[in-house]
């Protein structure tokens, strides 16, 4: 009986994932999102090259990693928002209720969404590889092992962001509130992460007193959201690549997997207890 249930659940996940995946691949949204992410990366890279042009020399560790992660963040936001919309819309329109009368469970439904997003991310990673290979050939910035490692880290960042998105969607009922909460929280996390990284690069002596106050405030907030924000996993992953040590690299992967599992389990639990009605 148990075996039959697992098979049924896996089959449902497969069908749901296939349906969602094809729907995304046949639409224009995905390609436009990738295009926007590449456009932003190109802008960053052009400025980087401009800096070299003016100074004749530029010393940096992995200049392609920052544009890559900018692209990853844009794409993750796209994936998570699309996923959240689809959950909330299905709930609002009652499709979810109809599905749940059938062999679809909270687990198979959410896992279907998660698998779809991850499969989409793997396809997008192919686009990333082609784009960054092109960048490397055009500019000679180097398609290094570190960039390949960054690709691996990005998979786990995407996993964290997607599971976080599913968690927020399971908490909220309507499309609008789902989107507002998701964008609000993710942008806040992103803003904190971004500001913290900016402040870390400015010498403390160069900061005015109010900037130092802001830096400390951001530092304290960052300390509290460190394990909650999916973008912190990106920072840790980046640092592990920079250190060139495998231990922190693998540990970060383990933490990301744990983060994903915990959030997915919580999402399933919330969907079960809250029910599928809007």
């Amino acid at each position, binding site marked *: 009986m148990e075996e039959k249930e697992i098979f049924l659940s896996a089959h449902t996940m497969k069908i749901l994932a296939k349906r969602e995946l094809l729907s995304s691949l046949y639409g224009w949204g995905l390609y436009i999102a990738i295009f926007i992410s590449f456009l932003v990366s190109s802008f960053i890279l052009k400025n980087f090259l401009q800096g070299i042009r003016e*100074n004749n020399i530029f010393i940096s560790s992995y200049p392609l990693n920052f544009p890559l992660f900018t692209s990853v963040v844009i794409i993750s936001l796209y994936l998570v928002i699309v996923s959240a919309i689809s959950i909330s819309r299905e709930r609002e329109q009652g499709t979810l209720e109809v599905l749940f009368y059938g062999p679809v469970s909270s687990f198979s439904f959410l896992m279907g969404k998660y698998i779809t997003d991850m499969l989409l991310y793997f396809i997008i990673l192919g686009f990333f590889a082609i784009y960054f290979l092109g960048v490397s050939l055009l500019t000679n910035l180097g398609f290094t092992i570190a960039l390949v490692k960054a690709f691996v880290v990005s998979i786990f960042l995407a996993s964290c962001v997607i599971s976080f998105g599913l968690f927020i969607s399971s908490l909220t009922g309507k499309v609008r509130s789902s989107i507002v909460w998701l964008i609000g929280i993710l942008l806040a996390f992103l803003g904190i992460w971004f500001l913290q990284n900016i402040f870390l690069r400015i010498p403390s002596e160069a900061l005015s007193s109010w900037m130092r106050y802001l830096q400390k405030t951001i530092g304290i907030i960052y300390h509290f959201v460190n394990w909650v924000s999916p973008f912190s996993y990106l920072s840790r992953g980046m640092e592990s690549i920079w250190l060139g040590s495998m231990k922190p690299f693998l540990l970060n992967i383990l933490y990301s997997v744990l983060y994903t599992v915990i959030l997915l389990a919580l999402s399933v639990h919330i969907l079960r207890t809250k029910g599928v009605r809007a």
Partner: protein
Amino acid sequence: MKKSILKIIISILALIFISTQVFAQEKKEEEGVSINLAPLRQEQLVYSLNVFDGKGWSGGFVPKTENTIYLIADKKSAICAKKTLVYFWPITARYMAAWRTLNEDIEGTLEVIKDEKVIKKLQKEDTVLCYPEGYWGEKNVLYKGEEARNWYNKYKDAEKKYYDELKKYYDARMEYRKKLEKFFEEVKKRREAGEKGPLNIEIPKEPEPPRAPDFYVTEPKKYYVLNLPAGRYKIRVRAGDGTIVEGSEKDVLVFTARRRGGVGYEIIPGNRWTQKEECNDPAQTIYAAGKNVLYFRPYSQDEYNELYHNKLLDPQNEGRIENWKWVHTEPIKNVYLTLFGREKILDRIEEKPYKVKQIPGPELGYNIVEFKEEYPGEKPTFTGYQLILSENLREKSYKIYLQSKEKNNENLSGSEREIRIIKKENANFLYYLSLFPLAVGGVVFAIRRRKIEK
């Protein structure tokens, strides 16, 4: 409705909590500012330091406002509790010690506490700082106890010997002058007498001045010498009567390097020699565009936490616990800088001295030329390894590393860096590259449409 109220309350509580944290931290740091804005000198118990900073031993003091002393693990560091007058200097926003007005040692036993247990009881010992390259040299070493006294005596003996030799030299010089005068008189006399050709008079030999001691040792001072493994400790001074000296309790944070024995480079670009670049991390790549001349200066280095190391240098310094910094420990000598490319060694560069010469005339500009002493005592602007990046470099990537002259050209671990020659002219094509997802989307859309039509 209830949920919304709950969310608002949680948000407000979170904001209050964060604000109190920030204010508490600010208050802790600026506690003394309000007191010390008044130009008053306040008697305080402070700790005077001579701590190992990764490179050598440097001095400093810990005012009352700083609760923690930062030390490097497994290295000797000398500390001493003193009474002095402390005042706030608004220009540098720092507390200063008026040592000349009051400098009173606090006597007693220094207790080191770990996990609420006293693990060490230290008495003051003689300590000296030895400068093996002389008073102006960058290197110094801390010695304690018998060794310190021996070094000091050795220096004193060398100094005495020097002064004795100097006295002898002055005497010899006076003798020399007299002989020289006699020599000129003799020459004059014989020339006036009509003597021609070589006179065969012995020319007096100028005496050689003695060489001053090539090292310097400070006078022995009584300090507690700490040498602790990494960890958090507390220290306090227990007076002779068994009581704890008020204000002597401090936290001690003993830290270690995250990475050790690295090789860092200071790079002086030929086109702007005053703006030096640093390439310290092995992960860093040197991106170059076009023609340039780079001068490399290699250093041994260790990587420390920025906050801890800054606080070690001066307990009143700022820093971020999240940041790490490479500390250059000493210049690397007796090596070649090797340029590798096209699967072979392209050049093995020797260290040379260079001089920056301003272009004569009103125009701005300079030339960096190999140093040749033009007048006695002239010194080079810098020494380094010159790497010429010409426009003809065809390869995309080159490597540089150091090879030891002493160890049969063995490569120095951690010294490898990549130099990539950037194709800056292609920067605009990057935008065209961004279009390819749209092209793929168009193809998918067309295929899908054809399928539906069929």
